[in-house]
Structure formats: C-alpha cells, structure tokens
C-alpha cells in the first residue's frame, strides 16, 4: 500500500524482477481453474498462458521473505484473526444500531517494531479486515501505520487500540519470521 512513498531513502526503490516466477504462475493458474470450475487439460493450459501474459505485463516488485512458516504461530494468527473478526463485527453492528449520538473516533499513529515490507503489509491488511480499524496512511520508511479507530470513549480506548495493533504485528512476526528476525524484533521491543 502507498508504495510510491519511499520517502527519498536512497537505494530503497522497489526493483522489478525478471525471469519466471513459478509460485505466481501456479497460483494464477489455480485461480483460473477454480473460476472455470473444472480440472481439465484445456483449462490448465489456457490458465498457464494467461498467467504468463499477466506476469509479463504486470511485473511485481520482489517480496523479501527470509523467514519460515511456523505452524504454531500461524495457527495463533489465524485463530485470533477469526476471534477478532467475530467480536469486532458484533461491536460495529452494535454501534450502527445504537440509539443516540454517533460514536467518537480517533486517528492514531502506530509505530511498528519490525522493518519489513511484508510484515507491514500483512499487519495493515489484517488490521483493515478487522472491523473498527481502518488504515488511512502508511509510512514505509519508518514502518508507521495511521489507523482510524471507530467508537472510542476516552484515552484508555485509544491506548487499547494501539496495543491491539502492536499485538497483531507480533502475531504476524511470530508466524512468519526467521529466528534472527524474531530476535531483532524482540530486542526492538525492549528498547521502547
């Protein structure tokens, strides 16, 4: 999100990669087959052709992913996401139906602790999917998110929203980071 804002950091511009991106090709082909609704040789071949054309016409910047999938962290991440989705959906629904004054909101700054495009993007996506928080601005250079939070009553609600965002990031890192990344992330937290 907001990728054009690299804030003038030299050498920080995303580089477009060349060559065949097999995971991308396979993913696009699977989607194509799903959309046609049948696993036939014709569908797979036409899907591969479309995937090659799409990756050639719209090349994406590479994602730096040096981590590994941690099964336990991933389960915690998905489990908490579902819980938050349900709870927050009910809360926003209650706010929408409440009689009386419309809710107060807040725009808060959250400084994420990791320095990775991937974790920044994933955290922002997950926070946006959970009702009650909306990402209005992203600073890639400092890993800062600006969130619009629905229905705050006082300062303690604002701080609770900030902590919720940081916990979301921690779950993302614990699900995907390598040992070195996780150690650096935890060390960053001690310095705060």
């Amino acid at each position, binding site marked *: 999100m907001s990728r054009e804002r690299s804030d003038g950091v030299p050498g920080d511009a995303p580089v477009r990669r060349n060559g065949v991106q097999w995971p991308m090709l396979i993913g696009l082909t699977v989607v194509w087959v799903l959309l046609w*609704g049948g696993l036939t040789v014709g569908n797979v071949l036409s899907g591969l052709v479309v995937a090659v054309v799409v990756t050639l016409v719209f090349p994406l910047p590479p994602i730096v992913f040096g981590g590994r999938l941690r099964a336990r962290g991933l389960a915690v991440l998905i489990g908490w996401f579902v819980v938050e989705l349900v709870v927050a*959906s009910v809360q926003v629904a209650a706010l929408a139906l409440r009689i009386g004054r419309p809710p*107060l909101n*807040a*725009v808060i700054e959250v400084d994420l602790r990791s320095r990775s495009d991937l974790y920044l993007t994933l955290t922002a996506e997950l926070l946006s999917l959970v*009702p009650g928080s*909306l*990402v209005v601005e992203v600073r890639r250079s400092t890993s800062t998110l600006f969130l619009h939070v*629905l229905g*705050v009553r006082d300062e303690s609600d604002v701080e609770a929203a900030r902590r919720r965002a940081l916990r979301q990031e921690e779950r993302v890192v614990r699900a995907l980071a390598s040992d070195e990344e996780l150690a650096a992330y935890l060390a960053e937290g001690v310095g705060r």
Partner: protein
Amino acid sequence: MTWLDVVSAACLLAGCALSLIAAVGLIRFPDLLSRMHAGTKPQVFGLLLILVGIGLRLRDWSDVGMLLAVAMFQLLTAPVAAHMVGRAAYRRGAVRRDTLLVDELTPVLEAEDRPGP
C-alpha cells in the same frame, strides 16, 4: 432436512443480518471514514457466513472452489479498497474533525507540506 441444512440456513440468515446492519450503519454514521467501517467490515464477515452457508448446502467440490476464490478475493481486495478511499478522503479534507477524539495524522501531514528550510 439434515443438520447440515440447519447450520447452512443459520449461516445464511446471520450473514444476511450482518449485511443489513452494514447498510444501516452506512446511512447512520456521520462521516466518510466511519462509513467505510460499516461498508467494508460487517460485510466481510457477513459474506463469509453466506459463502459457508452456500457451501454447506451445495456440497460440490467445483462450487466450493469457486466460493473459496470469492472469499480469497474479498479478503485481499476489501482492505486495499478501504485504504485507498480512506487515504484519499483524509488528504482531501473530507473528514469531520468534530467526530475525532484524537488526531495524530494531521500534524504529520502539515509538517510534510511545509517547505523545508
């Protein structure tokens, strides 16, 4: 009617109720950013419930694959769309300041717009 049909009907009804509440919120919330919450969020969960309901009723693998694709695209695109609309609205000043208890972004943007020394 099996118990699967009952679960399916419950999911469909709950999903419809959430989508209806999202529409109510869209009308009742005061400004664009609050409306983005109502417009994008209960509807994500509502849609997922409806997809689960349909999947339990159809029980056919090619249909379930299609439903999975719908869910995936919804989860991928809804936050990006909400972010782009919210970001543009904020920068255009289409935000009602009187609904904000705290605003930590405006000072940051103003500091950036000011010409440097």
